[in-house]
C-alpha cells in the first residue's frame, strides 16, 4: 500500500509522464491530419470546414504568369476556346482519377493567366448563339468558356473564390441525382443555387441520373449508361427514356434559376463505343430536342477553338491538366493557330457579300455544253493556260487562293457535293476572287448513277455560292468520253487535262513546278490538287509555277475563259 503510494508520487516518473502528456497533444492530431490530407472524404471535410470559417486567399499571379500573359497578343481571336476541369485539389493521389485533378494553386495561376492575357469568360448560351449565327460581334475580343464536369464539391468550393478574385466565370455541368442525394462528394442543390446566385456560375446538364458506366463486357471499352440500351429495350423506348432524363434535368435546372441549354456527355462518351446500332443517331435526335449545344472531351490532340459550322452537338473541350500558366497559354496558342487554319478553310473570314455574289452569278454565262471531253484549249487562242484544282476545298485551298489573288491569276476549282457543303464560304471566296467553280463527280458512291452525283454536286454549288457550274470533270481521263454526254445533259461541258505534274504523289515542290512549266503549251489545261491529302508541296509549287508562266508570257485563266478564247 505504502509502496504503491511511493511509486505514485515518484518525481522522475512524473517528469517522463508530463513530457509524454505534452507531446501527446500534437501526436494525437496526427491521425486526424492524415485523414484530412490523405483521403478524399477527409480532404472534402477539410475544405468545407476551412471555407465555412475563413476561405484561404487566392494566390496572386506569379512572375512567370504575368510575363507570359503580357506577351500574348491582344488581337481578336477566332472561335471560342472551351476548357474542361473536373476536380481541384489533391493532385498527389496516384489513382486513375488524378489526371482529372488540378491543384488549387495551378488553377489560380491558370485563371490569372487567362485574365491577364485578356480572355473574357462567356456562357454556353452566348456560345450557342455564336455557333448558330457565326457572328463574331456577339463575342468579346478574346472569349473563353470555362466548364467543370460533375458538380464536384472540391471544385466548386475552391474554384469559387478564385473565380471571384480573378473575375472569371464558369459553367458547371451537374448530375441531378448526385446533387439531390447530397453524396458529400457532390455539391448539393442548395449550395449550388447559392453559387449560381453569385453570377459566377452557370449550371448546366450532365444528365439527371445517367452518369454511370458499364464495364461488363470483357475486352471492350466501358460504355456510358447514356448510350446503352437496357435489356430488351427498343430504340424508341431508349429515346423516350433518355428524353425523360434530359427533360427532367432541364426542368430541375430551370427550377434552380438556370436557363442554360447545354449538355456535356458523361465521360465524354457520345457513343464512340456504343454496342447497339442506331443509338448514336437516336441520342442525337433526343439531345437536339432538349439542348442547343453539347460538349465532348475527346480529340485532345486535335483540339481547337469552337467555330461556327462546328456540329453544336460535338463541341470539343480542352481537358486541362495540372499545367502551369505558361503551359496552358502555349496550348491555347497552338490551338489558336489550328483554329485559324480551320477558320480559313471554312472561309469564315470571307465576308458574305450577297450583291457581289449575285453579280458574279448573273455574269456567268455558260456556253453550249460540249458533248465530248475538252482536253485542252486551242493553240490559236494565244498564250493562255488554265490551272485546275481537284479534290478541294481543303485547309490548303485558302493558301492557294491567297497566292492566286496575290498574282492576279485565276483558276478553276472542281468541287464535289461533300466538300462544297463542308466549306460553302470557300466557294464564295473563289467566286468573289474571279475563279471558276466546276463540278466533280465524287465521291464515288456505288449504286448512285453518275448523273445523280453530278446533279447533287451542281445543287450543292448553287446552294453554297448561288452560281451554276459550267464545267465538270471526269474522275479519270479514260472515263471522260462516258462522262461528257451525261454532263452535257445537265448543261455542263467536261474538261480533262493535258498537263499532269503528278502533284498527287510528289512531295517536291520544285519537281511539280518543273513538270508544269516544261509541259505547258498555249491552251494547256493543267491539273493540280488542293485536297485529298497533304497539299503542302502543291501550295509551295504554285508561286514558281505562276512566276514561270509569267516569264514565258502566259496568262492563267479559267476553263470557261480558255474556251471563250478559242
Amino acid at each position, binding site marked *: *500500500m*505504502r509502496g*504503491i*503510494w511511493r*511509486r*505514485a*508520487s*515518484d*518525481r522522475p*516518473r*512524473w*517528469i517522463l*509522464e*508530463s*513530457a*509524454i*502528456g*505534452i507531446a*501527446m*497533444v500534437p501526436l*494525437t*492530431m496526427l*491521425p*486526424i491530419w492524415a*485523414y484530412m490530407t490523405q*483521403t478524399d*472524404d*477527409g480532404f472534402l*471535410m477539410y475544405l*468545407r*470546414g476551412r471555407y*465555412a470559417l475563413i476561405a484561404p486567399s487566392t494566390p496572386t499571379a506569379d512572375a512567370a504568369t504575368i510575363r507570359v500573359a503580357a506577351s500574348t497578343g491582344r488581337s481578336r481571336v477566332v472561335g471560342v476556346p472551351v476548357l474542361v476541369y473536373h476536380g481541384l485539389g489533391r493532385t498527389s493521389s496516384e489513382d486513375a482519377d488524378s489526371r482529372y485533378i488540378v491543384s488549387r494553386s495551378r488553377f489560380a495561376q491558370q485563371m490569372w493567366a487567362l485574365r491577364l492575357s485578356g480572355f473574357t469568360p462567356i456562357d454556353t448560351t452566348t456560345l450557342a448563339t455564336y455557333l448558330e449565327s457565326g457572328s463574331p460581334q456577339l463575342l468579346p475580343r478574346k472569349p473563353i468558356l470555362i466548364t467543370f464536369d460533375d458538380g464536384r464539391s472540391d471544385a466548386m468550393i475552391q474554384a469559387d473564390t478564385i473565380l471571384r478574385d480573378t473575375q472569371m466565370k464558369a459553367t458547371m455541368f451537374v448530375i441531378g441525382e448526385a446533387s439531390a*442525394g*447530397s*453524396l*458529400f*462528394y457532390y455539391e448539393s442543390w442548395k449550395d449550388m443555387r447559392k453559387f449560381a446566385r453569385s453570377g459566377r456560375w452557370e449550371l448546366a446538364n450532365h444528365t439527371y441520373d445517367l452518369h454511370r458506366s458499364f464495364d461488363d463486357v470483357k475486352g471492350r471499352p466501358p460504355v456510358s449508361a447514356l448510350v446503352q440500351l437496357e435489356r430488351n429495350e427498343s430504340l424508341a423506348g431508349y429515346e423516350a427514356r433518355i428524353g425523360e432524363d434530359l427533360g427532367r434535368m432541364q426542368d430541375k435546372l430551370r427550377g434552380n434559376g438556370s436557363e442554360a441549354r447545354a449538355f456535356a456527355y458523361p465521360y465524354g462518351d457520345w457513343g464512340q463505343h456504343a454496342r447497339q446500332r442506331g443509338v448514336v443517331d437516336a441520342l442525337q435526335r433526343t439531345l437536339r430536342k432538349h439542348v442547343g449545344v453539347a460538349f465532348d472531351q475527346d480529340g485532345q490532340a486535335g483540339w481547337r477553338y469552337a467555330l461556327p459550322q462546328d456540329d453544336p452537338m460535338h463541341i470539343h473541350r480542352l481537358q486541362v491538366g495540372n499545367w502551369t500558366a505558361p503551359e496552358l497559354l502555349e496550348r491555347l496558342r497552338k490551338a489558336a493557330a489550328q483554329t485559324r487554319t480551320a477558320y480559313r478553310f471554312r472561309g469564315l473570314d470571307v465576308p458574305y457579300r450577297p450583291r457581289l455574289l449575285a453579280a458574279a452569278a448573273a455574269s456567268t454565262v455558260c456556253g453550249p455544253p460540249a458533248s465530248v471531253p475538252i482536253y485542252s484549249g486551242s493553240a490559236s487562242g494565244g498564250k493562255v493556260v488554265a490551272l485546275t484544282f481537284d479534290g478541294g476545298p481543303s485547309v490548303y485551298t485558302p493558301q492557294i487562293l491567297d497566292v492566286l489573288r496575290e498574282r492576279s491569276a485565276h483558276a478553276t476549282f472542281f468541287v464535289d457535293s461533300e466538300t462544297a457543303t463542308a466549306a460553302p464560304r470557300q466557294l464564295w471566296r473563289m467566286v468573289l476572287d474571279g475563279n471558276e467553280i466546276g463540278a466533280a463527280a465524287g465521291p464515288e458512291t456505288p449504286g448512285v448513277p453518275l448523273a445523280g452525283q453530278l446533279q447533287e454536286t451542281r445543287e450543292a454549288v448553287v446552294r453554297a455560292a448561288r452560281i451554276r457550274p459550267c464545267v465538270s470533270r471526269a474522275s479519270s481521263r479514260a472515263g471522260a468520253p462516258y462522262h461528257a454526254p451525261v454532263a452535257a445533259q445537265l448543261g455542263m461541258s467536261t474538261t480533262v487535262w493535258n498537263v499532269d505534274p503528278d502533284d498527287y504523289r510528289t512531295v517536291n515542290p520544285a519537281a511539280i513546278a518543273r513538270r508544269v512549266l516544261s509541259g505547258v503549251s498555249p491552251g494547256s489545261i493543267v491539273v493540280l490538287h488542293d485536297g485529298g491529302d497533304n497539299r503542302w508541296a502543291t501550295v509551295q509549287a504554285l508561286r514558281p509555277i505562276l512566276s514561270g508562266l509569267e516569264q514565258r508570257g502566259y496568262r492563267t485563266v479559267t476553263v470557261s475563259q480558255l474556251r471563250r478564247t478559242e
Partner: protein
Amino acid sequence: MRPKLAPFRPLEESTAALPPRYRDALLVRAVSRVLQLVCIVYAAALLYWIWLAKDNGLVVLLKDPLFYAYSLLISFYVLMRFALAPFYRSSPDVGYRPVCSIVIPAFNEEGCIEATIDACLMSDYPPECLEVVVIDDGSTDRTWERMLTARERHPNILCIRFHQNRGKRAGMAEGIRRSSGEVCIFIDSDSVVEPNGLAFLVADFENPRVGAVVGHAEVLNKTANLLTRMQQVRYYVAFRVIKGSESIFGAVTCASGCFSAYRRTALLEVLDRFETQRFLGRPATFGDDRALTNYVLRTWRITYQSRARSHTLCPERARVFAVQQLRWKKSWLRESLHVSKFIWRKNPLAAALTYLGCLFPWVAPIVVLHSVWFRAVGVGSPLFYLVGAYVMAVLYSLYYAITRRSPLWWNGITFVAIYMFFLVWQTYYALVTIRNTDWGTRASTHSEETDGIEVVEPAMAMRTEPKLLVHEESAA
C-alpha cells in the same frame, strides 16, 4: 518500526513533476494555463469536425437509417451528458456533522485494509461522531490479523469476523445492523479516503430528501501501468460527467461501493430486500452498490459529491480487469431492468438519458460490426467510422486534460479503443453467462450459513450518545 502515520494527501498531477517549492510558481501556473488553453482550442476544433461530419452522417441517413439513428442518438446522449456536466456544483461543507457509521467489508485484503482503516480514522471529522465497523468476510489470508493490528492503533473500531465467507452483502448488512449512526458510509477495503472526504460526503444530507450520496473515486495505483492510467481517466469522466449530470436531477443510478453514504432511514427500508435479492432464480451476489442505489433511488434523491474523494486500487492485470468489467456488466444488465421500472417518474431528461444509456450497449456491437465489416468504401466507410470514433476518444480524453491539466490525459484514447474493440462485446457475453454468479476471481461467495461470528467490541463506548438514533424512531 512502522512509519509515522500521516493523513493521506493526494498528489496534484499537473505539477507532480516539479520540486514542491516550484509547484505554485507563477510561471508554472501560467504555462499550465496556456497548455489548458491549447487543449480547449483543440477540443473546439474537434467539435467543429463533428459538426462537419454531420453532413456525412446525413448521407448515411438515406442509405442506412439504423446507423444514422444510432449516430444521432449517441451524439445526443454524449453531448447532453457533457453539456449538463458543467452545471453540476458540489455542495460546500457548511459544518454539518451527523453521526457516521463507516462500514468496511473486507475479503482477503491484507495488503490494504490497514491503510483504509487508518485513512478513515485520521479524517478531519469529530471522532465522537464517528463509528467504524470492519467486517472480515471469512478471509483466508491475514486480513483479520491486520484488522486487529489496526485496532491496536485505533481501539474504538468494531471488528467482526465471519468464520465462513457469506458475501459482501451479508457483511454490509451486518455492519449496518451493528452500527447506529444517522449516516452509513461504505468504504471498500481497497480504498483510502482523503482527510476532508467524510465532511464533504455528508454535506448533502442536510437536505432531508437526499437518501444517499456518492463520493468521487480516483485510481490509487494510476501510475502502475497503461491499464490503470486508462482507468484513472475513465473513472474521472464516469464520475464527473455521468454521475455529475445525474446528480443535477438527484438521480445517480450507481453509488459506487468504494465510497458512498446512505441515510440510515433509507437503508432500513430496503435492507431486507437488498440482502435477499434474487435474480433469475439465484441469489444476486455482485452489483451490491448498484442494487442498493436503485432500491433507495425509488423514493429518495441520490447525489454525487465531487469534493469527497477516495482513492481506490484498480486491477493492474488485463485478466482481472476483464473479469471485473464482466461482473459490472452483469450487474448493469440486472439493474438496468430494475431502474427502467421507475426512473420515468423522476426528471424526464434524466429518464431519457438513462433509457438511452440502457439501450446503447445493446446496439453498439451491432453497429461496430456493421460499420467495420458490412460497409463498402467511401462515405460512411469503416475508415470514416474509425476516425469518428477516434475524434470522440480524443475529445473524451481532452475533457480530462482540460479539467485536470494532467499529463495522463491521453490514456482516455486507450480506454475508448479497448471499450470499442473488447468491452462492447461483453454485453452479449454477460447476457449468456448471467446465471453464473461467480465473482470471477474466486469461487461464489455466497453462503447461507450464518453461524460462526467473532466480534471484537470497541475498547470504549462512544463518548456521547448520538443525538438522533433514526433506526429506533423508525422501529417505533
